[in-house]
């Protein structure tokens, strides 16, 4: 049995950078008994054990560049995409890198932070940490924050499948949580992303994030999943997070292993996009572009 100390986070440290530095050290220790995501594997990643995400202790990344494809209020953003993910979405647009934590290049927090600071000086409005799923590389994300100015506006782009251990370490670190709510029910989540107990976990994360930071919820419309996925997501958001910013994305394309599922062979039709918009209006969601 592997014993690790309980998470104790100093409240005396005042700057984000200093707090991130402290938490990064703690997060690295916690890799010895990893419970960052809701899979709750408890493997010792420092000793070479792998959980469901297959990630080791050394993070890698596959993209760092300034992008303008995210929410208008966040762009231009310097996007840092870490390799590997704890979900296995067959339709993943970056499946090759997201399913493989060994893809890409070695992550050097100081070097990436230098590029990020350069981007900020040259017009980037925010810095976005994403994946794959960045939660599985929490030590690296915190090391990066420790190298960034406290004034930088930081975005945590996540699948909202993190566990309490990760959330405690993330508290106060990011200005905005940009969180996916992909599936409206557990059956679709299990079938398309091989994940159980999805809805409960995501709801828990969204409620937490809304209390601790600014929250933007994303939903990627999938062909054939308006009634089973989008509608229940919209209904829950309206009831539990009224007024929360929602980005409804209609640009699904049949990437990666989408062909495994007959309904995911194509894109979202204009009829489905219209229906999804109607649902958003019906629930008076706060849609943002």
């Amino acid at each position, binding site marked *: 049995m592997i014993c690790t100390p309980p998470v104790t986070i100093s409240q005396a440290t005042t700057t984000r950078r200093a707090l991130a530095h402290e938490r990064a050290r703690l997060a690295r220790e916690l890799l010895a008994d990893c419970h960052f995501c809701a899979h709750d594997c408890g493997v010792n990643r420092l000793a070479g054990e792998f959980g469901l995400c297959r990630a080791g202790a050394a993070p890698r990344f596959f*993209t760092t*560049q*300034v*992008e*303008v*494809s995210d929410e*208008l209020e966040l*762009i*231009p953003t310097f*996007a840092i995409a870490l390799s590997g993910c704890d979900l296995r979405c067959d339709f993943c*647009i*970056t499946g090759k890198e997201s399913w493989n934590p060994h893809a890409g290049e070695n992550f050097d927090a100081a070097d990436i932070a230098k590029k990020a600071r350069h981007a900020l000086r*040259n*017009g*980037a*409005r925010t810095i976005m940490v994403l994946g794959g799923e960045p939660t599985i590389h929490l030590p690296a994300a915190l090391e990066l924050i420790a190298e960034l100015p406290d004034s930088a506006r930081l975005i945590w782009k996540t699948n909202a499948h993190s566990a309490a251990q990760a959330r405690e370490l993330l508290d106060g670190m990011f200005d905005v949580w940009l969180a996916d709510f992909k599936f409206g029910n557990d059956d679709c989540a299990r079938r398309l992303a091989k994940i159980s107990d999805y809805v409960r976990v995501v709801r828990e994360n969204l409620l937490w994030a809304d209390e601790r930071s600014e929250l933007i919820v994303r939903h990627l419309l999938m062909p054939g999943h308006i009634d089973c996925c989008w509608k229940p997501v919209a209904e829950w958001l309206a009831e539990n997070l009224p007024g929360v910013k929602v980005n409804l994305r209609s*640009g699904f*394309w049949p990437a990666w292993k989408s062909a495994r599922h007959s309904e995911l062979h194509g*894109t979202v039709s204009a009829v489905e996009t219209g229906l999804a918009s109607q649902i958003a209006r019906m629930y008076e969601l706060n849609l943002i*572009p």
Partner: protein
Amino acid sequence: MKKNKIELSTELLILSDGRILVQNLTQPMADILNGLNPEDKLMCQRARIGHRRNSGQKICKQS
């Protein structure tokens, strides 16, 4: 003197009905797509935001 090479990457999916889906949109690609279809308000905004923050330049007509 060796210049630093900056590689940017955007993925496009061009559909048979003329729609173009984009992943990881960069500023240069936003400029190109905006030039191809200046009537696309959202693309216009994306292109404009980046330029506005850099130089104040307007690159497409206001809708």
